[in-house]
């Protein structure tokens, strides 16, 4: 690993582990939200390996999220409440599903590919609500029950008695901060893996796919296995994220598989910066923050925020901004997304980049090594990340 990447990784580890403390002042330090940051960060990192590197825009990744969730809950019911087998199986099944869907969808590229993934996402969603209800329990969602077999737990002598169990990792409960740290460790591992993929020859080939598939073919490279591999890897990341969703909240519902839910991870990746290392995680964090914090704003909070204004102006500002917060946070998100796609297609990472360059050129200083590695080091020598 290059020195820049190592510093980046260490800073990342520190930031994640200290997140409850760092994010407390902005009201984001509580476990539920932190878990969501980690889980959707994992989802977005995986999606970025496909979309950011190869340029293939999939609207179907929520299906893998759903598969991961259902797998995890079934593992809880059948085998053990321990999250480990649940997430392992969730990842594997996510990958398997991705092989099947990817094999078909990747026969086409560009917008045809996107529409194919859309079709599969909707198919999965519709089937989950109708025919597959024995597995998915349709609208109510798959839930735990006291009477679940849990064969592994029984074999190891663990009895949850008359209480509806929650997942625990060898005795450590998966709710609250321990739950977050479980997810955080996995986030760090996933981030590390993504660094390796980005910097590897495989990663370079994925970028070649995005750049010029024709030349790639005539260079003797078969592009199909490369795109399929990227698709499956992203599917596994999504499966893992889905499994973790169930670990922290053992209820699996089909609404996670709708294509608009796929849209959310697209938003996250692009908002943060597609094709960058940190971008997707930042995007996931921003969107989840919006979803939980922004959506809790109401007129009272807004009034306090605009307290410093004279009263009529205060009321005007409150009525304008109230459209954008609370229930209207989706509106803000959509508008923000449009602005990013129009003006800053490289996402927030591009924004930081531009800011950094405008400051360093003004002050005439060269970037310190650490500052440079907070953003991304170039994947290979030369070129933009």
């Amino acid at each position, binding site marked *: 690993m290059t020195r820049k990447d190592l510093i980046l990784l260490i800073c990342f580890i520190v930031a994640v582990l200290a997140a409850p403390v760092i994010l407390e002042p902005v009201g984001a330090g509580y476990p539920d939200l932190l878990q969501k940051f980690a889980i959707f960060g994992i989802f977005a990192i995986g999606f970025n390996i496909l979309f950011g590197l190869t*340029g293939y*825009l999939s609207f179907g990744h929520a299906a893998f999220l759903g598969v991961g969730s259902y797998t995890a809950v079934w593992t809880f019911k059948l085998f053990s409440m321990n999250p480990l087998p649940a997430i392992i199986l969730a990842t594997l099944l996510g990958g398997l599903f991705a092989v099947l869907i990817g094999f*078909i969808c990747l*026969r*086409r590229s*560009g*917008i*045809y590919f*996107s*529409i*194919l993934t*859309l*079709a*599969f996402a*909707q*198919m999965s969603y*519709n*089937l989950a*609500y*109708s*025919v*597959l209800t024995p597995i998915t329990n349709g609208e109510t969602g798959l839930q735990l029950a006291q009477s679940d077999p849990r064969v592994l737990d029984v074999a190891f002598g663990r009895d949850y008695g008359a209480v509806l169990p929650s997942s625990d990792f060898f005795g450590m409960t998966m709710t609250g901060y321990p739950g977050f740290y479980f997810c955080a460790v996995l986030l760090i591992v996933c981030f590390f893996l993504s660094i390796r993929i980005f910097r590897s020859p495989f990663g370079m080939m994925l970028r070649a796919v995005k750049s010029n598939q024709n030349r790639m073919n005539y260079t003797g490279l078969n592009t199909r296995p490369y795109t399929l591999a990227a698709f499956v890897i992203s599917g596994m990341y999504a499966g893992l994220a889905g499994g973790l969703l169930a670990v922290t909240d053992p209820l699996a519902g089909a609404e996670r598989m709708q*294509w*608009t839910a796929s*849209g959310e991870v*697209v938003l996250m990746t*692009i908002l943060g910066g597609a094709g960058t290392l940190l971008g997707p995680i930042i995007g996931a964090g921003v969107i989840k923050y919006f979803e939980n914090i922004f959506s809790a704003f109401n007129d009272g909070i807004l009034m306090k925020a605009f307290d410093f204004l004279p009263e009529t102006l205060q009321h005007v500002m409150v009525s304008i901004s109230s*459209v954008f917060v609370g*229930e*209207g946070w*989706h*509106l803000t*998100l*959509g*508008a923000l*997304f*449009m602005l990013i*796609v*129009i003006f800053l*297609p490289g996402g927030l990472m591009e924004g930081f980049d531009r800011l950094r360059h405008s400051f360093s050129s003004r002050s005439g200083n060269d970037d310190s090594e650490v500052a440079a590695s907070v953003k991304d080091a170039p994947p290979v020598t030369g070129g933009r990340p």
Partner: protein
Amino acid sequence: MDAILLQILNGLDKGGAYSLIALGLALIFGTLGVVNFAHGALFMLGAFCAVTVKTVMSIEIVTLDPTRQTAWGTPMEIRTPYIEAWLGDFGATLLDFSVPLSILIAIPIMLLIGVAMERGLIRHFYKRPHAEQILVTFGLAIVLQEIVKSYFGANPIPQPAPDVARGMVDFGTLVGIDAGNVVYPAWRLIYFLFSVVLIGAVFAFLRFTTFGMVVRAGMADRETVGLLGIDIDKRFTVVFGIAAVVAGLAGVMYTPILSPDYHMGMDFLVLSFVVVVVGGMGSLGGAVAAGFTLGILQSFASMNEVKTILPGIDQIIIYVIAVVILLVRPRGLMGRKGVME
């Protein structure tokens, strides 16, 4: 035989909606080369035009009737819509026909929205890759959807069809089968006819006007048209406006069939894209043919006999067909070879 006829009829109104939306999508893609993920939102906006018109027409004035009393002994309130108060029976009729009347309001509004969209946003994305077009129109669809939701609320707002059309039509007698076997809601039949007329109007416009000829030429070969010195930009705006109006009107008339809610745009969008792909992305005729075909197929797939053999088939039939077509014949049923292959 009756059952088959009924299922065909069943699929025609939804097929009509798919066809109209897909027609606009195909027009925009074929002429402007833009993938418009906000097209479903235009359908939804049309529906909410109808909602607004009815709401406005239904604003009531309250008068007190001293001759009648409520349980508390106060004079009873009589609530009358202004329209009825001013225009009497004619007003009541107008209110009854609010949905068809909304067409008159919807045309200019949707045209305005379409032109604004094209001028303000879409034209900047002509040269940008399809993925970015999808993303920005997707964002726009969310924004439009949320604006509607914040204003109209999250619940569906039922819109009644005119009284005349509220009943059932005994289709059987019309085609000479026994009475009472094939009975079908009148408004849905009317919707089908409406969609046919609208589609016919679009095709007639494209075929019989000079403007239409230029558009068709542009769909076939945009570069040459530009080289011929024809100002294609203005025409693009008009084309987008027309597509928006078509989608909007489809939405207006659909309101009695499906109560409008802020989410309906997205719901119809996916299916409409699938229709366009099946029909062939550059083909208008394909979009229309595929729309009706898929609507009818979906209707057949929801027959109980079919569902017992293939459970759940009604949910996925359209997508399965799309997948098959995309794999076997990516240009679609009627697309031109080489377009996006």
